[in-house]
């Protein structure tokens, strides 16, 4: 894969300052030196002149014509489904299962996803992570964040048992059961380091709690998010004797990622969100139609509270510079994120860490780059906003998605598409002619299109795939159109990012037989 092309891939809508700091490849590099230095790149183009959010639609350039099976194989490459196993013919969990999928625009993709069942405590964890300036930070989150959450949720006694087992060299009982697509990988080399950091965290949790105590889900999520971000930061500052690992922790810390995580335990749904991912609940109304209930706030310039928060955290002199062109310090689109130490560390710390870092860093001019008007760091936090929702029978599903989805489809449309897919009913707005002048020919064309759209629903076995098909393939009439799909999916790597962002989706379906009937015993 030509690393060189990577720098500009994201620029039209780059979340960060124009270029990736560190290249990242999906296949773990066995040899760090295989990464070509990025210093040869031209000077990054600033996003100032670019529209904030807006892609080119329907590429006019010459593109390959993909056949429907080709389109399907692209769309389905990353799809994954999990069904909660039934016990005694019954699913007693509030979750029936989930469908997830992702479609890259960056190469390699910078989004990550995770799903796991907590084995020591109850509940299920699902999360989408949108990386920027590389995928390292998102990758680290996808491996580590759920362990931090699981630890935080554990009662004092369980933590003590865990510690005793590690102490005595006994095998540990598993904490999480992961539900992973083969493409969702773990960084094997970093596992020891990750484990040590995690152990330090639970030791602290043991010290800070007393027997019989455990954190509630809200506190647990908050604590886990903050702790992991601080661990990422610390690991980068401390470095590692292994030069690959040293390079890796720096890549993690200097790249960034948003996280949108849901914890579902019985009828209690907690959403912890950092950044501009989003969790939307699909609620089925009495008339059978679906409406969207958003469970998270986007942390970006469109959120007035966030702008006010950031402006309030810095001296009034910085009021005009801290948010410019709808970006943090004129550079970063999400206003909260993991990693991104360039927005968190003092200038001195950044310089110190880089100077002692591996050689690879020195070749990259941008690592030395300090954001403009950088006076009172930190400017960025990983602290999540947490929402609690008590599931009701009408709550049918939860859509977790990275901003790549929400930019292309309105949440109401998302919920309608998923709802109709899951119920198998097409709540399409019935057509009425009303007082308009419609000819028979026009009507025929319109109906043919609607018919094609309806038949698409049967192509997908996965709700997330179906949603991506709509997100990418919708034409101006809101109908999936093979031509559009084919064009969008056959874009050359270096152009794809101009038309769309990475899209990652997890759609969790609730069990209506369990949800809403638990009030008596939970």
């Amino acid at each position, binding site marked *: 894969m030509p690393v060189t092309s990577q720098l500009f891939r994201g620029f039209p809508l780059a979340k960060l300052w124009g270029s990736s700091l560190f290249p990242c490849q999906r296949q773990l590099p066995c040899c760090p030196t295989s990464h070509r230095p990025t210093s040869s790149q031209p000077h990054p183009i600033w996003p100032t002149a670019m529209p904030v959010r807006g892609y080119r639609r329907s590429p006019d350039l010459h593109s390959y014509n993909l056949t429907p099976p080709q389109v399907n194989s692209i769309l389905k490459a990353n799809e994954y489904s999990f069904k909660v196993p039934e016990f005694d013919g019954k699913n007693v969990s509030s979750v029936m299962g989930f469908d997830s999928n992702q479609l890259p625009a960056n190469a390699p993709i910078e989004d990550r996803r995770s799903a796991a069942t907590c084995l020591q405590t109850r509940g299920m964890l699902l999360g989408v992570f949108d990386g920027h300036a590389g995928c390292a930070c998102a990758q680290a989150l996808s491996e580590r964040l759920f362990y931090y959450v699981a630890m935080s949720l554990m009662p004092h006694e369980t933590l003590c048992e865990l510690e005793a087992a590690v102490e005595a060299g006994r095998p540990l009982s598993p904490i999480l059961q992961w539900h992973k697509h083969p493409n969702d990988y773990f960084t094997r080399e970093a596992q020891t380091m990750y484990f040590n950091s995690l152990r330090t965290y639970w030791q602290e949790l043991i010290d800070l709690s007393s027997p019989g105590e455990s954190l509630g889900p809200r506190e647990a999520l908050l604590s886990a998010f903050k702790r992991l971000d601080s661990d990422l930061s610390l690991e980068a500052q401390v470095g590692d004797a292994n030069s690959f690992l040293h390079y890796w922790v720096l890549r993690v810390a200097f790249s960034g990622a948003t996280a949108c995580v849901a914890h579902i335990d019985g009828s209690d749904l907690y959403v912890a969100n950092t950044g501009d991912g989003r969790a939307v609940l699909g609620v089925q109304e009495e008339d059978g139609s679906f409406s969207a209930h958003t469970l998270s706030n986007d942390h970006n310039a469109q959120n007035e509270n966030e702008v006010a928060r950031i402006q309030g955290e810095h001296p009034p002199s910085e009021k005009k510079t801290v948010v410019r062109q709808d970006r943090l310090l004129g550079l970063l689109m999400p206003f909260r994120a993991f990693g991104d130490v360039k927005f968190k560390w003092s200038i001195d710390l950044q310089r110190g860490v880089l100077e002692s870092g591996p050689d690879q860093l020195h070749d990259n001019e941008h690592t030395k780059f300090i954001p403009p008007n950088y006076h009172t760091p930190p400017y960025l936090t990983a602290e999540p906003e947490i929402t609690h929702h008590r599931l009701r029978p009408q709550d049918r599903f939860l859509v977790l998605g990275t901003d790549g989805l929400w930019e292309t489809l309105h949440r109401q449309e998302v919920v309608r598409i998923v709802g109709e897919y899951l119920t198998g009913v097409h709540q399409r707005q019935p057509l009425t*002619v009303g007082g308009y002048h419609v*000819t*028979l*020919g026009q*009507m*025929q064309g319109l*109906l*043919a299109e609607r018919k094609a759209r309806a038949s698409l629903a049967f192509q997908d076995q996965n709700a997330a795939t179906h949603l991506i098909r709509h997100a990418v393939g919708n034409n101006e009439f809101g109908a999936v159109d093979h031509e559009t799909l084919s064009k969008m999916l056959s874009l050359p790597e270096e152009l794809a990012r101009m038309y769309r962002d990475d899209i990652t989706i997890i759609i969790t379906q609730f069990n209506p037989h369990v949800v809403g009937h638990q009030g008596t015993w939970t």
Partner: protein
Amino acid sequence: MGIWSSPRRLASAVETTQPIPLPSQARVVICGGGIVGTSVAYHLAKLGWTEIVLLEQGRLGAGTTRLCAGIVSVAKPISIECKMADYSNSLYEHLEEETGVKTGYVKTGSLCLAQNQDRFLSLKRLASRLNVMGIPCNVIKPKEVSKLHPLVNIHDLVGALHLPGDAVVSPPDVNHALATAAAGHGVQIHERTTVNHVMMEKGHVTAVETDRGAIECEYFVNCAGQWAYELGQASETKVSVPLHGCEHFYLLSKPLPEPLQPSTPVVMDMDGRIYVRAWQGGVLSGGFEKNPKPIFTEGRNQLEIQTMQEDWDHFEPMLSALLRRMPELEVCEIQQLVNCPESFTPDMRCLMGETPGVHGYFVLAGMNASGLAFAGGAGKYLAEWMTYGYPTANVWPLDIKRFGNLQSSRTFLRHRVMEVMPLLYNLKVPRWDFQTGRQLRTSPLYDRLDTQGARWMEKHGFERAKYFIPAGKDLLSLDASKTFYKPDWFDIVGAEVKCCKEAVCVIDMSSFTKFELTSTDDQALALLQHLCANDLDVPVGHIVHTGMLNERGGYENDCSVVRVKKNSFFIISPTDQQVHCWSWLKKHMPDDPQLHLEDVSWKYTALNLIGPRAMDVLGELSYVSMTPEHFPSLFCKEMSVGYANGIRVMSMTHTGEPGFMLYIPIEYALHVYNEVMSVGQKYGIRNAGYYALRSLRIEKFFAFWGQDLDPFTTPLECGREFRVKFDTDIDFLGRASLLHQRQEGVSRRFIMLVLEDHDTELDLWPWWGEPIYRNGELCGTTTSSAYSYTLERHVCLGFVSPPSLDGSPAAVTPDFINRGDYEVDIAGQRYPAKAKLYPFSSLFAQQRRRKDEMELSNFQGK
């Protein structure tokens, strides 16, 4: 939805805001002010009835009538329907003259298009039938179509049928005109009056309970259309009116740039599933889609009909078919898509007549989207029915008594009408069967037969085997083959027939209707002697074939009666007689607690052992000699078969072949079947189906009720005088008419036609309803036909009558039959045929000494 002019109020009835009070009594109350109800009122009034009250829950013609497309076409599947449509047409044509009310009648003619040869054949067959009725029609080439209609794209057409007499009207205006004429004849019409239920006493209608009070009456007519089912269920004794609604859509366009002339013919493109008529300079086009949307399964009130939703997505296939047929319409603007629910019945025919359980309760509903075309004729027939006891034509195919309670399940109706509605425009090839609502009534042997390759047809909800596919045959291709030509099952049925002739076959005939009539004294005999044409005062154990005739001497039923005991009779009737025959018997039964009638159809499994070796099989199973010497023909004995005792064994087969019918109490059915099959093995026994039976009985000139015999056919007309007890003094029903007819001579005669010069492989097969020509002149129609494997010819049965001389019908003479060149017209092609009055005696060779034969020689001598 003011598609047509909004329903008008009747000046004579309701002009004031204060509704005039209902009368406290009337002779007849009609419920339903749609086109059907007003037609019934109109015709009753014309026949001299007084004290007629017509009740409508909303406004006159505000239901389906207001929304229907207004096409009056004679292109209908069966002849009685064509007749009704033809009468309606002439009625509507002259209505304006009669009443002064404009009806929008335009004699546009219509074009039935054929996109393929099979459709063209079915249109040609229709043309043959219409010719018989004297209804003008022309089979035309595609080029002529474009001369008649400016918009039709003819490129994919193979031909068309032009019906110049067809017309369009404005249905609410016709409704209004009929109501006006009825009111002029004294019919009282009350709008906004809802019938809650019908009161009954001792099986008679006594009064009608409405939301505005009760009306005492003798007769009630349920013309409630969509709501007829619910209304039937609402009465004290539930009345089964098996119909179910489906949504029906049609499109109205704005005027074309060059407005379409009102006289432009109606187009019916059945292959495209659409119809199109001119409407206010534009078009009105609807269709009968493959995937109809049933509606009102749970029942609704009338308000719902006003707020039906348009569904463009559902209409898409029909819109595409329309634009394919008339591409120029693409630029035409949409006015509206109308959703107009129609009611459908389980067999695509309307429901007419007196209900079986309640005297005085008549029904006319379930018009299968042809309400306008049928209303006139159907109203006339029903009025005649109520006046004279029966209409002037055979309406058995429409008689509500062809159904019973078993067709009243909502689930059944919902599923069945989803099949029926597309069927309106489906190509119907000979011997098609309904696919939905099946396996309702089955014999205990069903599974056994099914695993042996039985292919099934359904009669009155009962599954009957058509034939058995031998192991190794390609089942799928057999089921898929539907043709007007030689069918794929030809050789299979041929083998079954051969086995019946040479060895022995077993046919499960459990579907037959079986009644037991018993009395303490001779009341049962007295009743049967009154109802049956043949003499039933026979020794115990004898079987009598007899008709049950009406006053006119026509067959109400054709059955076999067994005198089981001195005062106990076992009556075997055709399957679809279950409701009709029951009600006929009940109607004539004296109110005598000592006389008891029971329907025992479900108690017995009937196996028909046909073939020369049947006696060997039964002999082995019962240790009783079954030879004709010991067990003469038309004789019944209770005996043991295998381990099972009490089996009624009858020496008859309904085919003229030697053999036995076994009436087996159902719990023994499997045992007896197994024993018969295992013992029969060495005699070459095999299963056979109804197609084999049919071939056997038709080649021997056996008439079947419902197919060949009807309430307008007398025993004399079909050579069954030997089954009439003329030699006794017993006054049976129809005797006077028969005596009269015997004196005058019959003017129509049931004959057998053996097709000659007909290539079984290449020529179209006869079915039924084909015109018969004598010396080039139309003289009758066929009623059934089958290929005779013995004669290696097609045999058609049918009625012929000589041309009338100065208006009065002429009597049939032997010369008329024997000295004439007969031809049978199959889809326009005439095939020479040899006419016969008697079957080939060679076919009966093996039964020379049998009773049947004695009777045969008896009447052959005449």
